[in-house]
């Protein structure tokens, strides 16, 4: 019986120890090897004080080490907190302190950046190097870490006993991982997901796609993005092979196409913009991608124009549109049928996944039942997050009492997404009423960017607005009003943002004005700002 995510690894390792579990470039690990390595790393973590319930950070580029890390941490009964390798040190320092991480798994190449995160006091106690051994000639005591931090080398891990740890270190309602997402008030917030929450999605997804051990599943999304949950755990459940797509390999769309062809990838899961880039620049028709049998996309609206082109280039594949916030993982799904040539409207987000229920509530507080009616989407079921780490008030705003459950106190997640029903009972995404947008599939709270910019002494007022882009989803535009007598250059604004925000949240369109336009109630007139924008 599998009730914890890492039990899939144990089961698959027993069943097919020699089957390739994960490939990264020229390197690979079989299920047996992965099981052994993760036992060893788990034991080292335990010996260094990691206890059930602890938060352990992972700060690595996509590699075999990423997969080893997640399973090892889960085996100790702790939960993992993946840190975005591309985020600025300040942001990562915030996350480490916020989630009280004292043990960090990282690579020898990233240790210097860990130092940069903590110029003064460092909350970390232990840093474990999870990539290959130290560079030739380097000694362990030469690794630069903040004072008071112990470094554990990979040599120590592979020398450790590989006996499995006890099963009862965690139960299904314990936290498996915390994924940090953009927070509207200025700092990111950690979404806590339990094993049970995760398994609800992992199990449904594996079945929806009919994953088998013969599948070769791409891992395109980074670890801190919940698309990775399907890539790693659904694949592991099926005993399939995971092919890691390192960050650099997807810079050039042609390289991605060649990787898919070379590795004979059968199932692809990514944000739509990655697929759009493949359509536009990936030279799909010049390569043989007949291996792909399922193309799944989630995270933002896929412009029909590019979806149509993709389906024409790869007609043999199934196409699945998955929808769901990090707080619930995927909760609705729609299998795309051949598109009518005249269709321009986005495809539906579909119907609830197995074991989950989605319902829309209109402005009168009633459930939406008629096609054409719209309302805010709510989700109930076992995949609902445990809450936001350290933010009970924010949690209570989003995990609300389900008023449609008369028999007991039940929670529902308030998505903030406005949807409508079509004649077949599929939900269609309409939009949001708040300041949360998607850019390249990333979730961005405009308020977080504004909050960061307000921290600059020269900035008096700022509004950050989305500029729709058919390839990227949205671009970010900042309209800034400085204090009298102060001058700010575009470079200064960019540099200021780069220190605190991940690159996808740094505005690329920057304007300066005397004063932001206001509505009659004195609020920033965002409508007027949007209309006055001319690209």
């Amino acid at each position, binding site marked *: 019986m599998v009730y914890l995510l890492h039990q899939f690894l144990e089961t698959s390792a027993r069943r097919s120890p020699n089957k390739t579990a994960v490939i990264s470039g020229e390197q690979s690990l079989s299920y047996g090897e992965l099981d052994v390595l993760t036992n060893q790393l788990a034991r080292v973590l335990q010996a260094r004080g990691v206890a059930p319930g602890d938060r352990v950070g992972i700060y690595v580029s996509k590699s075999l080490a990423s997969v080893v890390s997640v399973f090892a941490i889960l085996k100790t009964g702790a939960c993992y907190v993946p840190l975005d390798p*591309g985020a600025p040190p300040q942001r990562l320092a915030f996350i480490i302190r916020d989630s009280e991480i004292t043990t960090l798994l990282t690579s020898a190449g990233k240790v210097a950046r860990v130092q940069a995160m903590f110029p003064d006091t460092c909350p970390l106690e232990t840093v474990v190097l999870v990539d290959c051994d130290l560079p030739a000639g380097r000694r362990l005591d030469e690794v630069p870490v903040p004072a008071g931090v112990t470094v554990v080398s990979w040599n120590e891990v592979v020398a450790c006993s590989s006996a499995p740890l006890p099963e009862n270190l965690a139960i299904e309602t314990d936290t498996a991982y915390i994924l940090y997402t953009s927070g509207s008030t200025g700092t990111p917030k950690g979404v806590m997901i339990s094993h049970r929450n995760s398994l609800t999605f992992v199990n449904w997804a594996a079945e929806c796609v009919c994953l088998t051990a013969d599948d070769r599943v791409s891992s395109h999304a980074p670890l801190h993005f919940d698309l990775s949950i399907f890539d790693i755990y659904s694949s592991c459940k099926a005993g399939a092979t995971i092919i890691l797509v390192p960050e650099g390999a*997807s810079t*050039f769309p042609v390289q991605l196409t060649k990787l898919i062809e070379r590795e004979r990838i059968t199932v692809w899961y990514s944000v739509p913009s990655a697929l759009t*880039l493949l359509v536009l620049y990936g030279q799909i028709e010049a390569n043989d991608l007949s291996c792909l049998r399922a193309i799944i996309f989630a995270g933002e609206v896929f412009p029909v124009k590019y979806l149509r082109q993709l389906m024409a280039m790869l007609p043999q594949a199934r196409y699945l549109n998955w929808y769901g916030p990090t707080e619930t993982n995927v909760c609705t799904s729609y299998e795309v049928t051949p598109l009518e040539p005249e269709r321009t409207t986005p495809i539906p987000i579909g119907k609830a996944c197995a074991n989950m229920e989605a319902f829309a509530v209109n402005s009168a507080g009633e459930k939406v039942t008629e096609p054409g009616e719209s309302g805010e989407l709510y989700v109930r079921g076992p995949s609902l997050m445990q809450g936001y780490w350290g933010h009970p008030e924010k949690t209570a705003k989003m995990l609300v009492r389900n008023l449609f459950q008369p028999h007991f106190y039940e929670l529902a997640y308030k998505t903030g997404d406005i949807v409508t029903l079509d004649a077949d009972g599929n939900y269609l995404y309409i939009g949001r009423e708040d300041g949360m947008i998607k850019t*390249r599939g990333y979730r961005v709270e405009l308020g977080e960017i504004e909050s960061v910019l307000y921290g600059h002494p020269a900035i008096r007022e700022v509004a950050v607005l989305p500029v729709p882009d058919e390839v990227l989803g949205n671009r970010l535009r900042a309209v800034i009003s400085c204090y009298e007598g102060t001058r700010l250059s575009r470079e200064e604004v*960019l540099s200021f943002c*780069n220190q605190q925000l991940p690159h996808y949240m*740094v505005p690329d369109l920057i304007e300066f004005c005397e004063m932001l336009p206001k509505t009659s109630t004195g609020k920033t007139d965002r409508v007027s700002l949007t209309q006055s924008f001319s690209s």
Partner: protein
Amino acid sequence: METIVNEYISRELVSQPDLLPLQNDTPLLEHGILDSLSLLKLVLFLEERFSVEVAPKDLVPEHFGTIEAICKYLRAQHQVQEVQG
């Protein structure tokens, strides 16, 4: 040409100040200066600024690995355009 390209990349695409100043032979891919988003932005800039059209088949590491490589590619494109012109 190298100066224009260097200046654009340094100003718009480099997020870590310790990578500056950029040399014309600094590897742009290893240091994460170019990712799928910044590459697109760069291409749009080059197409506009230098009046070239970057074909999908040319979007490869060989042409975008360094500022030198980019300029070499752009000059070759200009020559092709002149011949066809």
